[in-house]
C-alpha cells in the first residue's frame, strides 16, 4: 500500500477555496514533485498533509507508523531565542548525539553543530532543516521549495543531496519546486496543480501534456511562463467539477492567494 493516500482533498480559507478535489498517492522510495503557479495551492497541500491546515473535504491517509520529515518554506529564527544547531536537532524526541552528528554530515554541514541558528547562511539553514527532518529517519520527506534563496550551483547541489538521501535511506520525497528544468531531471513523477490536479505522470508525460503547456508554455521547460501567470488554458476533459467562466476555458488566476503560497 502507498505511504500516503490523499483522496478528494479540499482546503478552504474562509470563502476562498485554495484546493479542491485533489487526489494523489506516494509510494515508498519515489521522488514526486509538485509544480504550479503562485497561488495554486502547493503550499496549502503540503500543510494539509502535515496537519497544519484543516481540510474541508476529502481525506488524507498515512501508512501506519509513517514518520514525516517536514522542511518548511521559510524558517525565521528570532534572534531573541538562543539556539545552537545541535539543540535545534535535539528538539525531536530521543535524538542522540550520534544521530545528530550523522544527520548533519549526511546533509553536508558537519561543522555547524555549535553555531547559533540565527547566524547560519541561507544555504546552511536549509541543510540544517533537512538534517532535522532526517534525524527521526522519516519514511516520507516533505520539502516546500527547499532551494528558495539559493543560487543555481547551490540548488543543484541540494537536489543532488536529496537524491543521495533517497538512495541511501530509501525514504520517499514529496517536494514543491519552481525550478522546472531540475524537476524534470530529478523526479520520478510530477504533479502539476492549480487549485486542482491539472495533470500528473512521469516528467515526459507531464511536460508534453496540454494542461502543463498551457500553464508553463512549451519552450525549454517553460521556466519563464511559470512566473507570467497568464494561463487561460483549455482542458481537454471536463471532470473537474468546478464552474468555468466560459465553458471549456478555465481562468485559474487566484491573485488573492498569492501571499498564502
Amino acid at each position: 500500500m502507498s505511504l500516503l493516500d490523499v483522496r478528494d482533498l479540499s482546503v478552504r480559507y474562509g470563502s476562498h477555496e485554495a484546493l479542491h478535489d485533489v487526489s494523489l498517492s506516494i509510494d515508498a522510495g519515489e521522488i514526486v514533485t509538485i509544480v504550479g503557479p503562485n497561488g495554486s495551492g502547493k503550499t496549502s497541500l503540503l500543510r494539509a498533509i502535515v496537519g497544519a491546515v484543516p481540510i474541508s473535504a476529502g481525506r488524507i491517509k498515512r501508512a501506519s507508523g509513517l514518520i514525516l520529515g517536514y522542511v518548511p518554506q521559510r524558517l525565521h529564527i528570532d534572534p531573541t531565542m538562543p539556539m545552537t544547531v545541535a539543540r535545534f536537532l535535539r528538539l525531536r524526541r530521543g535524538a542522540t548525539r550520534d544521530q545528530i552528528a550523522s544527520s548533519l554530515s549526511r546533509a553536508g554541514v558537519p561543522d555547524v553543530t555549535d553555531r547559533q541558528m540565527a547566524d547560519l547562511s541561507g544555504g546552511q539553514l536549509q541543510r540544517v532543516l533537512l538534517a532535522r527532518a532526517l534525524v527521526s529517519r522519516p519514511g516520507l520527506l516533505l520539502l516546500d521549495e527547499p532551494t528558495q534563496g539559493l543560487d543555481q550551483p547551490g540548488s543543484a547541489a541540494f537536489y543532488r543531496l536529496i537524491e543521495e538521501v533517497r538512495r541511501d535511506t530509501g525514504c520517499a520525497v514529496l517536494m514543491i519546486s519552481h525550478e522546472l528544468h531540475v524537476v524534470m531531471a530529478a523526479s520520478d513523477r510530477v504533479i502539476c496543480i492549480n487549485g486542482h490536479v491539472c495533470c500528473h505522470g512521469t516528467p515526459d508525460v507531464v511536460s508534453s501534456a496540454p494542461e502543463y503547456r498551457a500553464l508553463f508554455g512549451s519552450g525549454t521547460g517553460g521556466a519563464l511562463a511559470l512566473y507570467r501567470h497568464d494561463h487561460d488554458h483549455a482542458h481537454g476533459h471536463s471532470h473537474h467539477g468546478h464552474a468555468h467562466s466560459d465553458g471549456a476555458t478555465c481562468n485559474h488566476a487566484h491573485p488573492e492567494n498569492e501571499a498564502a503560497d
Partner: protein
Amino acid sequence: MLDDFMTRATLGGIGVAVATAPLGSFVVWRRMAYFGDATAHAAILGVALSLALQVSVFLGALGVALAMAMTVNALSGRTHSMDTLLGVLAHSALAFGLVAVSFLQGVRIDLMAYLFGDILAVSRLDVAAIWSGALVVAGLIAWRWSALLTATLNEDLAYADGIDPRRERLVLTLALAVTVAVAIKVVGILLISAMLIVPAAAARPLSRTPERMVLTAGIIGSMSVLVGLRVALVADTPAGPSIVCTAALVFAASGTVSAFRRATLASA
C-alpha cells in the same frame, strides 16, 4: 525562621523569580510583553471583587487573570489585532476594577499596595501561595518544554511533529495568569511585567541555548531580589521597585559586556 519579615520577603521574591524565569523567556521569545501587562492590569478588578466577596486576593486576581487570558486567547486573530484587543480588555478591566473599588463601603484598601506590591508584608500563607504557584508554573513549562520550544520556533514544524501549537499557547497563557496572581503581593501590578522581561532580557546575551537562558534568568532574578531587598533595608527605598532597579542594572551590564565582546571579536 519564617518569623522574620526579611526572610519571608526573600523567600517570596525568589519564588516569583522561579516562576518568571521560564515564563519570561517565552514572553521575550514570543514577543508577548504586552500580554503580561494586560493580564496584570485586569487583576486589579480581581482584587476589588475578592474584597467585595471576601475571598482571598490571590484567588480573585487568579480568577480574573485567567478569564482575561482565556478571552484574549480565544478572540485574537479575528476582527481586531492582538494589541488592540489587549488594550481594550486590559484598560476596561482596570477601569471597572477602580470603579468597583469605590463601591466597597467600609473597606479602606490601600490601592498603592496592589499597584506597587508590598513584599515586606508577605505572610507565611503568602509564601506558601507564591511557592505553590511558582512550582505549578515551572512544572507546567518543564512538562511541555520541547513542545513549547518547537511551537515557538515554527508552528508548521510543530504540526508536523504532532504538536498542536494552540494547546501550547494556552499552556503559556494559563501560566501567565498564575504568575500574575502570585506576583501581585511581591512587586505589584505595575511591575509584574518587569520581573517577567528584565531578567530574561538580561540573560539573553549570556546564553547559547534556551535552557541556559532560563537558568541565567532565574539566577539574575533571585540575585535581584536579594540585592534589592538589602538596598531597601539599608537605604529605606521601596522594596519592589528596588528589586526591579537591580535587575535593570544587570540588564545594562550584560548588554554592555556582550557589545564589548562583539567589538573585540570584530577587531580581532
